[in-house]
């Protein structure tokens, strides 16, 4: 069985596309071959900056012959029908066979599709693959129409077995396949022929190409860490950079160089970012000083001077880059040390979103919200205000303009330079967190307040202008923002009702967009204060309405009608995110639903405490049985209520109890009813669940011994009212009707 070797040789393929392209080549070619009946034993894809390679072992030499039987018209059918069938099947009349079937004699024919040689199939599949290759971006070149990621120069495509090798003939827009390739652009010896994969890999290495990207990456990391270790230093790990660098070289040569003394005073993050983004350098840290003192660069060739010229050149480039960084840093420090007012001023001219105003508007809005959270996080409103106002200042700095990924971090340095307190500096950095599910959540109260306010303002803002995430589209990362709020609240054990904050922040957005701004602002102010005192919006508007002589402006009416829906919708979004979050923790979605149905569901901590307690309870035997008991009680009750057209909710009296189990249930309910409701009142859900657990045995015993639907109507009604007590107690803990099972 032959082996197949394909190499597509081109001008430099972007590093970030290489791995995916090698996989796509493998998948598309093997899929095509298998579909045509050519199976194989093994497949390996490789990439270097100039080539995609696929090696297949143990390919069938030809596709198997396939026989197919087709049923035709009945014997004696009109000639036309028979001729049509013959044409369709591509056979002659003498190939027809008559066969008896339950429906009479019918013509059959056996069509044989002979196998095809592998080369023929490979040529077709490879051409199709090349013409339809899924590059993220492709191009044309010269006067041709073929598309590839960069100009494609040659195609190597050979089949080889013990007897030797042969070229699979192929011609794509003038590029003819062959058995020839070339090695390193500068260290190679020109074009050479190969006989199979082993020969190919060996000759490439001879001509200074390491075919396997994994091998290149390992080589780089090995040499880099060794070189650093020899001087008592550590290479800062960066897997993404390692993969990228391995995709930029065919023959990696690792070199380590110094960072000039002038720049060691720059923040380490600035050094690291500048070196990585611009130069693809690894940072090398001195564990004793904690400073980044050297860099590692990876060249694509060996030289007579062992890389001295290359290293000197790289060092010079780095010097220029870091001179720029230092220039930004020093300019920024001057602005920061003067109080950073110039930055804050300029944010008033920077648009955040055309419907949500400038960065300045946004800062004002979330500063107000952050200060309202002072009590929640237990920090001083004044400090929170200062931190919130400063949080985005670094967006105007030159360093962040140059390196957007340093936002926040530079804010911390600049806050310190501006003489702001540690809390303000920490908030400047931390208020973006958490960015992802594994990112740390800030714990400093001021940082937490600003982080929450920033995210809540973003969410309410985009909800106000109806730019919600849909399907896979979430351009403003609103899901991430909501998850951020959830984690900030839960991990810091914060207690707050989101509804009131949503409403107030939505009002702030409305005030911003209002037609009659001054009036709108004044009214919003009033409304906002009322919300603070009374909770949510609905009732509050009425209070304000009473306070104002005459009718509300139409605009306010409209806001009043629309805003609660927006707010509710946003809370629903939070609940959805919360379900995803808790599902990862192993809490079932129906358990969360049962808790969301309870009052106070905008207090995420309360909601989650309840859900966790319920989840734990339902995992116990008591919990599982109590749930069954509740469901049984609820079913009987619901059916009876439907049948009788009344609600059984009051008046169960122990004096009508007949059975001991019935009396025992009365007694148990008397004890636990109070215990559970006071546990709920003090939010001790574990104790509430304990109370529920204590009800399980009496409920089970009751159902065991007693027939609810007694012939005695008084006894029956009394029992239904007793079931109603069970229902009320259980529903006071969570909406168990929503729990499955």
């Amino acid at each position, binding site marked *: 069985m032959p082996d197949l070797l394909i190499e597509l040789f081109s*001008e*430099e393929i972007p590093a970030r596309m290489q791995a995916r392209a090698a996989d796509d080549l493998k998948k598309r070619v093997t899929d095509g071959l298998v579909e045509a009946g050519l199976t194989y034993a093994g497949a390996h894809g490789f990439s270097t900056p100039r080539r995609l390679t696929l090696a297949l072992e143990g390919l069938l030499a030809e596709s198997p012959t396939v026989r197919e039987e087709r049923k035709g018209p009945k014997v004696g059918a009109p000639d036309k029908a028979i001729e049509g069938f013959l044409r369709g099947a591509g056979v002659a009349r003498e190939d027809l066979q008559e066969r008896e079937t339950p429906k009479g004699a019918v013509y059959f024919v056996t069509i044989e599709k002979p196998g095809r040689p592998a080369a023929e199939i490979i040529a077709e599949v490879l051409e199709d693959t090349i013409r339809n290759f899924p590059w993220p971006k492709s191009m*044309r070149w010269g*006067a041709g129409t073929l598309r590839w990621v960069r*100009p494609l120069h040659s195609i190597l495509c050979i089949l080889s077995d013990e007897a030797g090798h042969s070229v699979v003939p192929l011609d794509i827009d003038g590029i003819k396949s062959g058995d020839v390739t070339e090695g390193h652009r*500068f260290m190679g010896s020109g074009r050479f022929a190969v006989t199979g994969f082993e020969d190919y890999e060996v000759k490439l290495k001879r001509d200074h190409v390491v075919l396997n990207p994994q091998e290149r990456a390992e080589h780089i990391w090995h040499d880099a860490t060794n070189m650093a270790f020899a001087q008592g230093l550590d290479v800062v790990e960066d897997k993404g950079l390692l993969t990228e660098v391995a995709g930029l*070289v065919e023959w990696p040569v690792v070199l380590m160089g110094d960072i000039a003394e002038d720049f060691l005073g720059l923040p380490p993050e600035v050094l690291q970012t500048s070196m990585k983004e611009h130069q693809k350098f690894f940072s090398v840290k001195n564990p004793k000083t904690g400073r980044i003192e050297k860099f590692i660069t990876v060249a694509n060739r060996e030289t007579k001077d062992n890389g001295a010229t*290359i290293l000197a050149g790289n060092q010079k*480039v780095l010097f220029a880059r870091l001179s720029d960084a230092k220039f930004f840093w020093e300019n920024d420090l001057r602005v920061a040390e003067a109080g950073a007012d110039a930055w804050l001023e300029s944010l008033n*001219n920077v648009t955040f979103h055309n419907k949500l105003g400038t960065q300045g508007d946004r800062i004002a809005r979330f500063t107000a919200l952050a200060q309202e959270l002072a009590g929640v996080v237990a920090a001083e409103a004044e400090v929170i205000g200062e931190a919130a106002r400063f949080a985005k200042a670094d967006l105007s700095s030159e360093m962040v303009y140059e390196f957007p990924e340093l936002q926040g971090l530079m804010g911390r340095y600049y806050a310190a330079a501006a003489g702001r307190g540690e809390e303000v500096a920490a908030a400047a950095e931390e208020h973006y967190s958490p960015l992802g599910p594994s990112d740390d959540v800030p714990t400093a109260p001021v940082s937490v307040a600003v982080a929450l306010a920033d995210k809540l303002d973003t969410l309410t803002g985009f909800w106000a202008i109806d730019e919600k995430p849909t399907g896979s589209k979430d351009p403003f990362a609103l899901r991430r923002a909501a998850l951020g709020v959830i984690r900030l609240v839960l991990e810091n054990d914060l207690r707050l009702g989101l509804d009131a904050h949503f409403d107030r922040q939505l009002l702030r957005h409305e005030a911003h967009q209002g037609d009659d701004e001054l009036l709108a602002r004044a009214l919003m102010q009033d409304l906002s204060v009322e919300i603070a005192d009374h909770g949510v919006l609905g009732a509050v508007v009425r209070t304000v309405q009473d306070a104002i002589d005459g009718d509300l402006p139409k605009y306010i009416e409209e806001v009043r009608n629309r805003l609660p829906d927006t707010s509710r919708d946003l809370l629903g979004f939070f609940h959805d995110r919360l379900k995803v979050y808790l599902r990862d923790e192993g809490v079932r979605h129906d358990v969360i639903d049962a808790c969301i149905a309870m009052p106070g569901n905008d207090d995420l901590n309360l909601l989650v405490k309840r859900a966790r307690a319920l989840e734990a309870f339902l995992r116990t035997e008591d919990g599982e049985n109590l749930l069954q008991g509740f469901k049984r009680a609820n079913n009987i009750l619901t059916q009876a209520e439907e049948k009788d057209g009344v609600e059984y909710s009051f008046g169960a009296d122990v004096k009508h109890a007949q059975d001991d189990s019935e009396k025992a249930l009365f007694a148990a309910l008397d004890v636990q009813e109070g215990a559970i409701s006071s546990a709920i009142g003090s939010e001790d859900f574990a104790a509430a669940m304990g109370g529920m657990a204590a009800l399980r045995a009496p409920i089970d015993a009751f159902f065991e011994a007693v027939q609810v639907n007694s012939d005695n109507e008084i006894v029956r009604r009394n029992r239904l009212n007793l079931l109603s007590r069970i229902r009320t107690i259980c529903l006071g803990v969570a909406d168990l009707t929503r729990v499955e099972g």
Partner: protein
Amino acid sequence: MAQTDSKPRSFQEIILRLQAYWAGKGCAVMQPYDMEVGAGTFHPATTLRSLGSKSWAAAYVQPSRRPTDGRYGENPNRLQHYYQYQVLIKPSPPDLQALYLGSLEAIGVDMEMHDIRFVEDDWESPTLGAWGLGWEVWCDGMEVSQFTYFQQVGGHDCHPVSGELTYGLERLAMYVLGVDHVMDMPFNDPEAPIALTYGDVFRQTEQEYSRWNFDVANTDVLLKQFEEAEAECGAILAQDHVDPKTGKRIVMAHPAYDQCIKASHLFNLLDARGVISVTERQAYIGRVRTLAKQCADAFVQTEAGGYAA
């Protein structure tokens, strides 16, 4: 002139060697365009000639201005006025990478000692409505050229595709000559009777223009000029293709394109003066792009643009 196998000794020698090299490879060595542009790409020998089906090969130096990059002549390698060397060949020849590497050797870069790399860098000019795929070429980690296969210019698909090479001359020369500050670089032969450095030629102008660009340029006048250029461009293109005086078909793509270049540079000046907000920025770029597209539409209606009556 020195031998090509020796190291060049001055800025101008590098330019002369590039001119000789590309002339030897069959390019028409053209002269700079006589207008203020932000990059060599704006020269009609690139922007317009990359359009249409006719073959083309040109090389030239183009003085380029980027007002926001002014540093009063103090930054070692940032200038508001600098030179680009530009090569455009249509259709792009299959050995363009090798030709390019040959040009580096011609200016004294020893391939045996340096690390030359082609690093992904897709080029896009929002003002020209143009994009292409290619690389920035690194020499020992230093970006020495842009290498682009034009895919679209002025909203038109490029057929055939042009290969474009752009060398940042100062940076490249500093590297080859081993100079750390651009102002210290020998402009002419350092042993000439009157040896001049780059600083002798340009330090003062960098200061003058930095001050004017950042703080003095009259923004009202610039705005007005922008609008005039925009209007004139439209007015030129609105003319009938047939000239009533000569009775000949004369589509005025180049005069209209001059106005587009003007508008683009005026926008850069306004940007440097800091009077264009983020949102307005996009709008201005869009206005220039509209002009560029209209000029491209007009050019393909000309003989040089492949129009056949």
